[in-house]
């Protein structure tokens, strides 16, 4: 019989696509992560909360192998990235999408070239590239910006292009680094709606770093209605069971569970944080 209950409320029968085991990382004398352990399962979206400087963005870079941990193990799609040489990591990273905090679009390339970057590198046929780029840009409702340069776009549009670039080759995992950071509330809602759409339409596993509680809770309490073409409140229990939360404090995981577990948590720091 499959196991059904876990520490974070997600069935362990589901395969873990990303796993951190006792990961530690420091810069100089300052220890940023102190024995961080958690699992991200296939189809799960994990919202990572934490105050500024708690190591959220660093954690994403570790998952991508952009940084190496001082101790511990990181397993991504069955491969241990913590000890993998850079040349092998390039192959693995093609299965992972990443949306950077400030979008990190290539400013000398057009929107089309930015989104197509990965496909061009993989020498995909030109017509296939065009088709997939248009599809990805249509997903973020920016198919009219193909020939524009990032500098000609607003902050929200740049973020949407970054999402299109991350999803263009249908990755198995997507990492979002503060996708709504620095945006106005209306644009933030548009971005969150896109993330919900991505989660519900493609069922991609995702790890989303944010310090905006409302974004995390919207993700957990809403789902995407494909017929209406917009996000709607989740029926039934009111929370999306595929969306879980993880809270970091001083480099340690202090909470890993569902929205309901979080709402019921009595820890003083967590109560204060989510209030």
């Amino acid at each position, binding site marked *: 019989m499959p196991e059904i209950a876990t520490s974070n409320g997600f069935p362990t029968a589901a395969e873990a696509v990303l796993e951190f085991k006792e990961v530690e990382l420091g810069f100089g004398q300052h220890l940023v992560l102190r024995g961080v352990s958690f699992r991200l399962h296939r189809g799960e979206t994990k919202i990572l909360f934490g105050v500024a400087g708690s190591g959220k963005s660093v954690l994403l870079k570790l998952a*991508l192998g952009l940084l190496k941990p001082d101790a511990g193990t990181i397993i991504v799609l069955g491969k241990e990235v913590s000890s993998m040489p850079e*040349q092998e*990591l*390039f192959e693995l990273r093609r299965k992972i999408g990443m949306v*950077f905090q400030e979008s*990190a*679009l290539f*400013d000398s390339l057009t929107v089309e070239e930015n989104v197509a970057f990965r496909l061009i*590198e993989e020498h995909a046929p030109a017509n296939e590239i065009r088709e997939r780029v248009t599809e990805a840009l249509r997903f973020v409702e920016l198919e009219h910006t193909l020939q524009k340069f990032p500098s000609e776009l607003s902050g929200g549009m740049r973020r949407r292009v970054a999402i299109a670039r991350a999803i263009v080759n249908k990755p198995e995992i997507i990492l979002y680094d503060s996708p709504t950071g620095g945006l106005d509330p209306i644009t933030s809602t548009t971005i969150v709606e896109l993330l919900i759409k991505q989660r519900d339409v493609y069922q991609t596993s995702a790890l989303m770093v944010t310090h905006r509680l409302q974004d995390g809770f919207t993700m957990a309490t809403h789902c995407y209605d494909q017929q209406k073409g917009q996000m709607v409140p989740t029926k039934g229990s009111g929370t999306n069971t595929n969306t879980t939360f993880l809270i970091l404090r001083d480099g340690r995981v202090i909470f890993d569970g569902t929205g309901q577990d979080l709402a019921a948590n009595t820890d003083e720091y967590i109560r204060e944080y989510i209030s």
Partner: protein
Amino acid sequence: MPITAPDEIIKDKVLAIQEYSLLAGEAIANLFRRPRYVSDMLMQADFIGVGSLPIVMLTGLSIGAVLALQTSSTLQQFGSISLTGQLVSFSMIKEIGPVLTSLMLAGRAATGMASELGSMKVTEQIDAMRALGTDPVKKLVTPRVISTVIMLFFLSILSDLMGLFGGFIVAVTLLGLSTRQYWTSTYQQLQFADVFQGLCKPFFFGFIIATVGCYYGFSTKGGTQGVGRATTQAMVASSVLILIVDFFITRLLIGVFGR
């Protein structure tokens, strides 16, 4: 401003040398690995080579003319004014042509590379490239190294020719030499060793310009101020390295060829 301990400074310098060596080694190793970014290489060749043509040609012409002018008074004392062409050709082809062209290119290309890659680094574009599964050294450094080495070779030849031409204008118009007299003396004494010496230097200098420029770009920290700092450091470091390496190559080749 905090005071850094001397051992920390030494550690930083050793680390910088180690990182530079690794980057340079990787850039060379990538010559034998796929994919090869031919279009990036051509784009860089256009920027480095074609874009530098006016400044390199002007520098060559000016230095050749000045060389002829400056040496004429000394040569006149010994009644050897007819050797002006020989002196200009020896100086330009063996030393001044490649070194000066490299220094001009260091000012234009190494700084350009440091600022471009530095801006990419501080805006996380380099990380984004790695995240997209592309090796930034292969995509950004190796094409720049190949283009700089090849283009500097041809730019040095052009600079030499312009230098000879500058010397020719001065020799004919101001020193009263005939065209035949000047050009005969420029190539008469020139030997394979002299030309070889002048033509092999650009390969080393081109490699230094590209790798130093890219290294400072990749190691940029601290926003726009950091980009400015990296640009200046790239210019200074590549110029100093060119001058140091020039001495050792010259000594080595004199030892090999005996002139």
